[in-house]
């Protein structure tokens, strides 16, 4: 149903367009500025004025039909659709978007088993990319894409998309998952400032709680937010070496370093009044709600802070709050020596070896594609050639610049490196174990046992 609606729409649109690619690009940029409303008019206005040049050559794909599967919904899906629209206009191909639901691996897996995989899928987990590559479900990149990749991406991001020396994935969208977003009014009312360390963070939380605003909003109904909490604490406390070992399951989850990290996390999760809605309330809060309860009512928020990645900006966009004014961000507080930098990202992979699929990957590896979404907001590109002026506000520009500046000095989301059964399945593995921990933060040993049992099964040892 969905595809057919899209197809008709794109066919109608295509009929009206017989312009050169560069002109078409400036047109979409202008449209984008108009639709974006107040949030990004400055940046996109510039883009339209310059008439950005196409930096990548794409083949003519008239009449071809492609399918792209990705987890995105709502505003993210709409913004990605703009990228696809641009690709349609440049190549003449028709691209249908298939939302995968929470579990990309399961969705794509069942499509592959059924013999009708989408042409391109966006894999949020490195672990899934490796598993798919091993099974031969995904195809190595072609020369044109590799060229764009080499030009635009640092080695660290290229390696994340590789398996056994072969390049498979293009990290189109990156995420900086070490950010705490806060409501500036709540901070002002309580008279607290941005904390730098974990202790300062807890102190600030206590003061906020005294001021009558529940300090921390946790989206515990979605297990992945909890894995991200844990990873930041663990990376900062146990250090990058241990982090890599745990990610590869070279050390067990019953390791003392895991116990320490859970104890640290328990200092927050164990205090009912520090969590919006208490522990049970946090468990029922989905990620979008965890953001809106901080920013929906700017003056009288239901919580003061929410931890998650840069993509929180998208959900803030659904509220009245102004990023940079009502909503600000500080780096995840340092538990040990340094503040952690945990990143994530969605890698585009080809499931069919067609020309269209590879052309789309080439496009996604290009600066042009990154710029389209970047100016809509809620998107950080690992593309180092992208002009950061396209980001709609200073907050997002700073996040993006920090990510590029970190170079190869970051750690990829641990749960996304794990096999999907452990790190990426709703109601199972790490997601479930940490939800149980949130429900009962006193039981650290029990949580460790549960984590280790699930990990041992998923890693197959």
């Amino acid at each position, binding site marked *: 149903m969905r595809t057919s609606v899209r197809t008709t729409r794109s066919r109608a649109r295509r009929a009206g367009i017989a312009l050169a690619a560069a002109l078409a690009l400036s047109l979409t940029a202008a449209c984008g500025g108009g639709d974006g409303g107040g949030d990004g008019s400055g940046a996109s206005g510039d883009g339209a004025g310059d008439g950005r040049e196409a930096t990548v050559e794409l083949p003519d794909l008239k009449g071809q039909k492609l399918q792209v599967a990705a987890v995105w919904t709502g505003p993210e899906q709409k913004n990605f659709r703009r990228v696809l629209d641009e690709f349609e206009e440049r190549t003449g191909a028709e691209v249908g978007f298939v939302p995968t639901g929470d579990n990309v691996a399961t969705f794509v897996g069942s499509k592959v088993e059924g013999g009708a995989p989408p042409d391109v899928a966006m894999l949020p987990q490195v672990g899934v990319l490796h598993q798919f590559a091993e099974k031969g479900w995904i195809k190595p990149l072609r020369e044109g894409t590799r060229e764009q990749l080499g030009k635009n991406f640092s080695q660290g991001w290229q390696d994340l998309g590789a398996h056994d020396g072969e390049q498979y994935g293009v990290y189109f969208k990156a995420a900086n998952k070490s950010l705490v977003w806060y409501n500036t009014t709540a901070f002002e009312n309580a008279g607290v400032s941005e904390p730098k360390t974990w202790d300062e963070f807890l102190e600030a939380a206590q003061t906020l709680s005294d*001021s*009558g605003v529940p300090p921390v909003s946790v989206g515990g109904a979605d297990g992945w937010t909890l894995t991200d909490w844990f990873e930041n604490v663990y990376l900062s406390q146990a250090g990058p070496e241990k982090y890599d070992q745990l990610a590869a399951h070279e050390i067990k989850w019953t390791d003392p370093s895991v116990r320490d990290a859970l104890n640290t996390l328990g200092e927050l999760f164990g205090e009912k*009044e520090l969590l919006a809605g208490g522990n049970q309330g946090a*468990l029922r809060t989905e990620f979008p709600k965890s953001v809106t309860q901080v920013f929906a009512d700017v003056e009288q928020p239901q919580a003061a802070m929410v931890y998650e990645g840069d993509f929180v900006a998208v959900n803030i966009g659904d509220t009245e709050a102004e990023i940079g004014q009502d909503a600000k961000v500080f780096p995840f507080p340092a538990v040990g020596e340094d503040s952690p930098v945990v990143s994530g990202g969605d890698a585009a992979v080809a499931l069919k070896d067609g020309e269209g699929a590879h052309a789309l990957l080439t496009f996604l590896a290009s600066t042009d594609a990154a710029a389209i979404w970047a100016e809509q907001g809620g998107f950080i590109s690992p593309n180092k050639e992208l002009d950061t002026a396209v980001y709609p506000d200073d907050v997002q520009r700073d996040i993006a610049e920090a990510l590029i500046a970190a170079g190869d000095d970051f750690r990829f989301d641990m749960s996304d490196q794990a096999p999907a*059964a452990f790190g990426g399945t709703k109601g199972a593995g790490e997601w479930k174990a940490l939800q149980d921990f949130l429900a009962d933060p006193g039981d650290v040993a029990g949580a460790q046992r549960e984590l280790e049992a699930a990990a041992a099964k998923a890693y197959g040892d």
Partner: protein
Amino acid sequence: MSTAAAGGPATRRSSIVRARPWSAACFLLPALVLLGALVVYPIVYSVHRSLFDASGTGFVGLGNYIELFTDDDTLTAIRNNTVWVVVAPTVCTALGLIFAVLTERVRWGTAFKLIVFMPMAISMLAAGIIFRLVYEQDPDRGVANAVWVSVHDTFDEASAWPGARPRPDGELEGTGGSYTTKSAADAADPANLPLVGVPPRDLADAAEASPARPAGDGKVTGTVWVDFAKGGGGEPNAVDPGEKALAGVVVEAVRDGRVVATATTGEDGTFALPAEADGARLRLPASNFTEAYNGVDWLGPSLVTPAIIASYVWMWAGFAMVLIAAGLAGVPRELLEAARVDGANEWQVFRRVTVPVLAPVLAVVLVTLMINVLKIFDLVYIIAPGATQSDANVLALQLYLSSFGTGADQGVGSAIAVLLLLLVVPVMVFNIRRLRRENRR
């Protein structure tokens, strides 16, 4: 159906088959091919596949079945499936029977039946989404909790300052939600009872707190207020300008575990207790601070399966009702009349005549629903949130979860499918035997 006609044609048909077996084979072939390709082959293949490992190449014998009965998730699924099979069809049939019998007697019965049957027109997926909303925790969004909370609040009034609490190191210390002073009250020295943690929106209309003065006539005075000035300024445990008063807080004077006097704070947060309170401890009882009742956690670990079963009943009670109503229309009126003439009351007529006569229909409904319930998937998959999905697990869901995705093991998945098949078989056998018996009659 008609027994008289059955004998003749049957004999003739068998003689044709005996005379020309190939023609019978020709007629049977299309059906056999379809049955074979769509039913027999998948069953055989599933059994075969369940004996191999995840990759499908290594023979593991009954390994997958052993894993099935040692895996916690599958055991939960089996237990939940049992609950489902026992409860859901029974409740549906019982409700269907009640609806059918009652609607037979009212004039707008058809309209009622139409409404009860309507959920059947909705897909399981849509019903799942509807009930996800119904069971939403927030009473402002979830209907179930909205009803529950308003009933609860009718009997139990909300407190004045939910969530207020003392600073950890302050003069007040808490036991069981109420807060008591560490030292005894003194008529000459007004008691300061500072609290924190009151949401700013609750304080919008509150007056500024004023420090209490000694009354002089032996009365014990004091102030209850929010010891938190906007912006974080102000001295702890002192009434600073700009700090808001907590009006309507009950203050009790307690001596030797007995309440000797009570007072309520005024607009400016001050209170005055009679002279008996001198030397007693002051207590702020828990009733001042109880959090607003937030309803039932419908989708929590313990209630999630009953909650989903309820949504299933909502959908399928209409189905049961329509079938039973059809059966009821065929019940001979004379039987009921005869019973009534013989002096049976309505309950006896229902219990001794209607139900026994309807028994075959009830059995059909029950068995159909049982088969239907064994393979329940959609409602559980959609309604159960991630945190409690494993508590709500059923076999069909476990089958899906273990068969697809990257951690997929289609060996285990097939084993679950075979187990499901085995569970359905007795119900099928019962159904077939009953049909045979009926045909013979």
